[in-house]
């Protein structure tokens, strides 16, 4: 990547014996909405705090805007952060909170006031400037935290699960606002979340993290369509997994014998499979076609019995029990015009899918 805003080179972080981050290396492009996605304890917040300068890496190089950040304290970095708790100063008013960082910028009082007004307007808090932090709702506190960081005009805005404390409706609203805000101000956002849907909705690119490592960095579509390992496949969306043993390989394409039954053909997402490998053949629930009646098991086709049906309005979720598989196969069908339900629980069905929809994933 040419001239990235952030470059991480073998960054490691240990707390005593615990290795929170293990050799992290990647770039973030200017103006990108970049998400760090992972379950709690995966190291994503630690990584964000290293970017902010609140934590120092144990090893490795961090470069922001072309300058090495070793020994540069948080208050001298071109980054600002929106904390998970928002960290609104309780003894200051909304206006004082937002203007907090402007004292340290070399600008006149008049300009500081103008920029504070502008920031208040940007996050739609007009008229609330004199309120104290106690008198704000959760969404308003979040806006104050956002304005307080943006008013300093950072090169990178760091967001630590800023929406997790909000209820669902407000969260969706704020997602839209965050996304359009990012387009308006045009600065790089690094967004930490454990909510895969949120990451997919907002991001240009996502880094999926687990156990202190980055598993995959890709666009939302790339992550969903071509997960490079089992962990990513299971973390992002729902994935049906069929254990199998590879019997034939042709480039990226692999054919595998199902365990216990059936034959699968699919595409290797990561390194090509070798004959004899035990793998998982992975299919997304919405790529599966469902047909009433017990058909013959064949290539990319299995027979089963519906164990439950959930009607969700725009779509229906079927769980289909297949002999020899521990977990039922999930099938999502859109409820298009003129389409009835396929069956009720207990009905025999046949599932089939295209081989381009099947990913060959390592068992590891």
């Amino acid at each position, binding site marked *: 990547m040419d001239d990235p805003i952030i470059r991480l080179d073998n960054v490691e972080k240990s707390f005593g014996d615990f290795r929170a981050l293990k050799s992290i290396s990647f770039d973030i492009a200017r103006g990108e909405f970049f998400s760090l996605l992972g379950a709690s304890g995966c190291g994503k917040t630690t990584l964000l705090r290293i970017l902010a300068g609140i934590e120092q890496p144990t090893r490795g190089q961090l470069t922001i805007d072309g300058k090495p950040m070793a020994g540069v304290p948080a208050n001298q970095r071109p980054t600002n952060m929106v904390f998970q708790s928002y960290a609104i100063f309780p003894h200051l008013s909304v206006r004082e909170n937002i203007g907090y960082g402007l004292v*340290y910028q070399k600008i006149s009082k008049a300009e500081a006031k103008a920029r504070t007004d502008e920031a208040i307007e940007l996050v739609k808090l007009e008229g609330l400037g004199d309120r104290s932090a106690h008198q704000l709702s959760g969404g308003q506190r979040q806006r104050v935290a956002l304005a*307080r960081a943006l008013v300093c005009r950072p090169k990178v805005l760091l967001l630590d699960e800023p929406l997790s404390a909000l209820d669902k409706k407000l969260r969706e609203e704020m997602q839209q606002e965050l996304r359009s805000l990012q387009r308006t101000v045009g600065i790089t956002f690094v967004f930490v979340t454990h909510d895969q849907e949120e990451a997919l909705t907002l991001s240009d690119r996502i880094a999926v993290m687990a156990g202190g490592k980055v598993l995959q960095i890709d666009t939302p579509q790339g992550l969903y369509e071509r997960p490079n390992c089992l962990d990513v496949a299971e973390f992002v969306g729902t994935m049906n997994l069929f254990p199998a043993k590879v019997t034939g390989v042709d480039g990226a394409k692999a054919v595998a014998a199902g365990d216990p039954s059936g034959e699968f053909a699919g595409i290797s997402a990561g390194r090509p499979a070798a004959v004899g490998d035990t793998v998982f053949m992975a299919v997304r629930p919405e790529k599966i076609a469902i047909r009433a009646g017990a058909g013959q098991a064949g290539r990319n086709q299995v027979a089963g019995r519906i164990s439950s049906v959930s009607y969700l309005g725009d779509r229906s979720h079927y769980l289909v029990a297949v002999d020899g598989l521990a977990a039922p196969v999930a099938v999502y069908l859109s409820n298009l015009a003129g389409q009835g339900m396929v069956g009720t629980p207990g009905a025999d069905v046949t599932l089939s899918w295209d081989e381009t929809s099947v990913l060959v994933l390592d068992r590891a």
Partner: protein
Amino acid sequence: MRRVDLLVLYAVFFVLFLYGPMLLMPLFSFNDANFATFPLKGFTTRHYTGMSANTSMMTALRNSLLVGTAVSVVATALALPAALALTRYRVPGGGAILSFMMLPLVVPSIVLAVGLLVVVLRILGIPLSLWTVAAGHLMLCIPFGMTVLMSRLEGFDRSLEEASRDLGAGGWGTFRRVTLPLAAPGVISSLLLCFIISFDEFVISFFLTGTDNTLPVFLFSQLRFPNRLPSTLALGSLILVGSAVLVILAEILRKRGVASDNPGDI
């Protein structure tokens, strides 16, 4: 029902036992007699009005106020950085340091006083004065100040200080603009608490004072003269009221501080 009644009775006796003797003091201070005995003779305020004429009492009062104020300010100023260091950073041997600082809380003050006396007179060779009293009080007050301040500093969100740093403030700026204002209720209750401790302290003052008496030492010396007892009682009553007001004030401030940090999740 019966059990509840017994509990109420128990509680009433408990409180009477604790505070009864103390309440006799204001009672006798208004009694028109030179001896603190029943039956009461009649109501008078002469023990109070006569106090300002008692110059040695007034000097002792002035000394106590002086020492108390100085000690509370210095003890709080010393306890605040220590409390910050122990709550904010991983100090090597922090646990041991804290235990040593808290030691004066558990060592009997008579032991402390004798030890200090030996150190001050024999080892350092400093003549006894209000300064030595203040130094002794300081030792006693710092652990109290530490306790109050540490609980206050532990009580607020660490990310507030991180946010301040992130927004461009340095260490001093963060302390001045975030830490200190948020710790203010703790600082004030530490000041009040240290003042009361110093003001009420007898044993260390008794050992370490020179010719200048503090109020408790003065009071003790007056007990040898039975006819001066009522004015002593009057003074004691005033101190009782004053201390109570200060303690209640400190507690209110502490509570209000805690409440304002939890605006309630919405």
